[in-house]
């Protein structure tokens, strides 16, 4: 919609950009952004405006304000990964996906907040503080929340965004941008998407270039796409996917961007419901919602079957071993020598390294490095790392078998419950929380499959609940088509935010979700 508006001249890129920038300022309390690239964004908007005037926009994304998670390299703009280790680090190059967005004319508003080095499921453990879920301030949530006492104000009851791409999810959810990039290693795009009521797409591993994405787990990371509707996700996917010679793990085949058909007949579709995803701790609400969704498909004529992914229960442990091992390796480069934080300790190279790393990394990162190094020790390698690789193969094979049996798409919950209040969330440590929350999303990363969160309904507390679809490798078109159909059926309500209402512009007013 907004793209059409730009084309028709009902709104200009400059106006759009300025609106978003001012909205960012008025929603500062969300702490969704680490860096706001105001100057460059305005310049980009200006250039876009020129192009529209000449009737030569670069594409659908020309002039569209976007935000990027702060673990993507952006030339000339600080890239911190929410860590002291990279505070003040100005990247000299753009990540491939960032470059692609810019080449399409998108306007980069800023870098969004995250858990330090993308380790976490709450976006609470970065050095710039936690991200607040915009829904905490929504009419829907406030109406449902029972104030415990008069003195308690809304400030203390806010809920988390989920993580680790919480900043990006919050940015999209609060209308400060139209699309955002996150990353997804164990669910880091889908989890916050579910909690913030936005679409979160994890593409197939190897479809989108990771060049410039500061890695967590190289064999599982993918750039994630967060938008307000499925069509938008398809558009962004189309502009990002494809082989990158700078990333040897991208597939060689040519990628053809697609437009999503509006599916009307689902009778040929087979939806799988994996029974193991009825995980411990799954809230009654979500269970009911999941069931309702299955019924929705069934009633529309689709074939809905229960399937089994028997190795699901091992995925968390397996993930833990492989993730920490890769983290230990990937973090080895942070020694303060070439870039980033360097400690003042200078008695010896080794003591400088040790001090730099102690000062630069938070406990979560250091914990994972230590675990990872333990698993990689010669005497442990076979027992843990190789074993985990084997289990990973089994998990991936579970999916292969299920898809081979005729199932097109799997339907599962995305999270165990709606967003927790921050005060509750921080009662458990990062590792515990991650282990609890990753269980529904993490297997898709192990198997490299595409998966998407679609906002479905509001919980009893007035917070978003989402459901997840998992598709076959490189079958994003099918996956997104099904997701789009589902989205249309459920008609997830728009967030009602005071701050947004004040921005009286037709771009921000619409019945359903905003779309390009």
């Amino acid at each position, binding site marked *: 919609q907004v793209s059409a508006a730009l084309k028709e001249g009902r709104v200009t890129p400059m106006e759009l950009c300025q609106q978003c920038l001012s909205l960012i300022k008025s929603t500062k309390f969300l702490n969704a952004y680490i860096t706001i690239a105001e100057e460059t964004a305005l310049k980009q908007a200006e250039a876009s405006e020129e192009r529209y005037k000449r009737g030569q926009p670069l594409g659908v994304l020309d002039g569209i304000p976007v935000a990027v998670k702060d673990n993507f390299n952006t030339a000339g703009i600080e890239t911190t990964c929410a860590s002291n280790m990279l505070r003040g680090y100005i990247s000299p190059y753009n*990540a491939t996906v960032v470059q692609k967005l810019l080449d399409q004319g998108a306007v980069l508003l800023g870098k969004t907040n995250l858990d330090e080095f993308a380790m976490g499921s709450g976006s609470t453990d970065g050095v710039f503080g936690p991200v607040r879920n915009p829904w905490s301030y929504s009419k829907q949530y406030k109406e449902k929340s029972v104030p415990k006492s008069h003195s308690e104000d809304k400030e203390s009851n806010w809920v988390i965004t989920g993580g680790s791409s919480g900043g990006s999810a919050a940015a999209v959810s609060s209308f400060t941008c139209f699309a955002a990039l996150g990353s997804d290693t164990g669910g880091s795009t889908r989890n916050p998407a579910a909690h913030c009521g936005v679409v979160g797409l994890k593409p197939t591993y190897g479809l989108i270039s990771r060049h410039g994405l*500061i890695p967590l787990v*190289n064999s599982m990371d993918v750039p994630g796409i967060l938008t307000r509707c499925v069509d938008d996700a398809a558009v962004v996917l189309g502009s990002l996917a494809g082989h990158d010679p700078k990333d*040897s793990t991208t597939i060689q085949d040519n990628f053809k961007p697609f437009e999503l058909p509006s599916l009307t007949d689902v009778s040929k579709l087979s939806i799988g419901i994996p029974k193991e995803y009825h995980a411990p701790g799954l809230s009654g609400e979500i269970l009911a919602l999941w069931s309702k969704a299955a019924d929705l498909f069934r009633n529309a004529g689709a074939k809905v079957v229960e399937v089994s992914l028997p190795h699901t229960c091992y995925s968390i442990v397996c993930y833990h071993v492989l993730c920490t091992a890769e983290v230990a390796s990937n973090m080895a480069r942070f020694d303060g020598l*070439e870039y980033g934080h360097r400690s003042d300790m200078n008695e010896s190279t080794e003591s400088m390294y040790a001090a730099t790393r102690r000062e630069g990394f938070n406990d979560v990162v250091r914990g994972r490095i230590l675990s990872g190094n333990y698993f990689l020790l010669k005497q442990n390698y076979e027992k843990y790392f190789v074993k985990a690789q084997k289990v990973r193969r089994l998990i991936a094979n579970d999916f292969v078998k299920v898809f081979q049996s005729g199932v097109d798409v799997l339907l599962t919950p995305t999270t165990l419950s709606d967003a927790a209040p921050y005060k509750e969330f921080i009662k458990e440590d990062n590792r515990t929380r991650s282990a609890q929350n990753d269980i529904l999303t993490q297997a898709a990363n192990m198997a490299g499959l595409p998966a998407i969160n679609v906002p479905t309904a509001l919980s009893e507390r007035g917070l978003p609940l989402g459901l997840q679809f998992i598709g076959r490798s490189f079958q994003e078109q099918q996956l997104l088509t099904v997701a789009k159909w589902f989205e249309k059926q459920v008609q997830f309500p728009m967030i009602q935010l005071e701050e947004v209402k004040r921005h009286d512009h037709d771009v921000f007013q619409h019945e359903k979700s905003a779309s390009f």
Partner: protein
Amino acid sequence: MAARGCGGAWRRGWQRGRTLPGPAPGPFPRGQRVVACNARGGAVPAGKSGLAPWVPVVGLEIHAQISSNSKLFSGSQVQFAAPPNSLVSFFDASLPGTLPVLNRRCVEAAVMTGLALNCSINKKSLFDRKHYFYADLPAGYQITQQRVPIAVNGSLSYSLCIDNKMSQMVTKTVRIKQIQLEQDSGKSLHDDTRSQTLVDLNRAGVGLMEVVMEPDMCCGEEAAAAVRELQLILQTLGSSQAVMAEGQLRVDANVSVHHPGEPYGVRTEVKNINSIRFLAKAVDYEIQRQIEELENGGTILNETRAFDSKLGCTVPMRDKEGKQDYRFMPEPNLPPLILYDAKSLPANMNHQQVINIDWIHERLPDLPSVKREKLVEQYGILPEHSFALLNEDGLAEFYENVVKQTRMKPKRVIGWVLNDLLSYLKQHSLTVKESPVSSFLLADLLNLLEKKEISSTAAKQVLAELWKGEGKTPLEIVKEQKLQLLQDQKELEQICQAVIDRQENE
């Protein structure tokens, strides 16, 4: 070939099967124990001392810098002695978010080398990360091939002279365990006065081929000969320029000793060897040191030692104490390296994207051993001569050019090239390219000799004059110095008579 490579001065002090006649050069331990190598590295019974014989065992790990325009995983240039940190890409500096991209030329170089060393080329090989912290390793890990390297199970044949004479050569073989591709590290310079370390990353990420030679060698001479032959092969292939002085070829030696019939002894690793000559010295010193140590009731530590070229001995290296666990892990950013041959090549593949082993094999140049055979066959020279010709850069070509331009038999020419020309070059530390006497000039001179216009002695005189490089032709010099052979019988008689007359008058 091998004898010269080993360094004449040192060899004089170390003779096979005999104890030293006088004080040993360098700090060799007293009472040289007898160690000798026979055809397969076995021990020879001890001499007068009557002690049990020792079998030395020497293996080598050789790192050869690949001759390529850009580095193994990044596009930055490869160049020796460039300004510090001027050839460093984002990836080389380990900037976060950068990824490795494999350099095709480096893979080809490794395949060529593997084929030349009779290896099986693994059609599928893998990359791994080897972790350790050091200032010249920006990523905190090196990308190497630990699990499945690109080539395995090869062999290298090399030759040695026996008994200090050039006349008897024996051929030996050393097994090549594997060849693996890996990254070179940067360079660090320790500045102790200012308590700082300076790091230059120009070399970080340059492609290396690590060639692992099994412990089939038994002394410094064999090690040196093997390395020399490998060097020639690499230079012939063009896969590495293999110049040790520029760090393009680095050798680490693994040395141990044991009694025959007993299991191998504890080995030490000797590093910091900067030339082939020093390699032989270092290995022999270490063998002796270990023997001394064990015979005095000591034990050998499994340690890394550095060769001190000034003192001619090995010393423990301080910063490599204790065993390192490198925490090997597969490199997740590089898919397995798949190579094809004519049979397995898929029909519709882009030629740019694949490497065909058979195609490379067909285009391998003649290896040194083949070249030597051809020289012997074509010119009737001795094998030792062919070694000497190939041992010096450009000498074989020089020789062949002389042969082409002269009527003198190649068998005679060889003496002039190897004895007169080469010794002169060596005396003045010149390369063949720098020779003031061109092949044309030498051929010209030899033609005069062949036509019997001058004597052999005269020819040597002319040659001495030619070295001055004054641009005179041999004929001109002959005329100047009146060196022509007199053919006229009568004239000769007159001169002889004159000499006799003079003598009678005194």
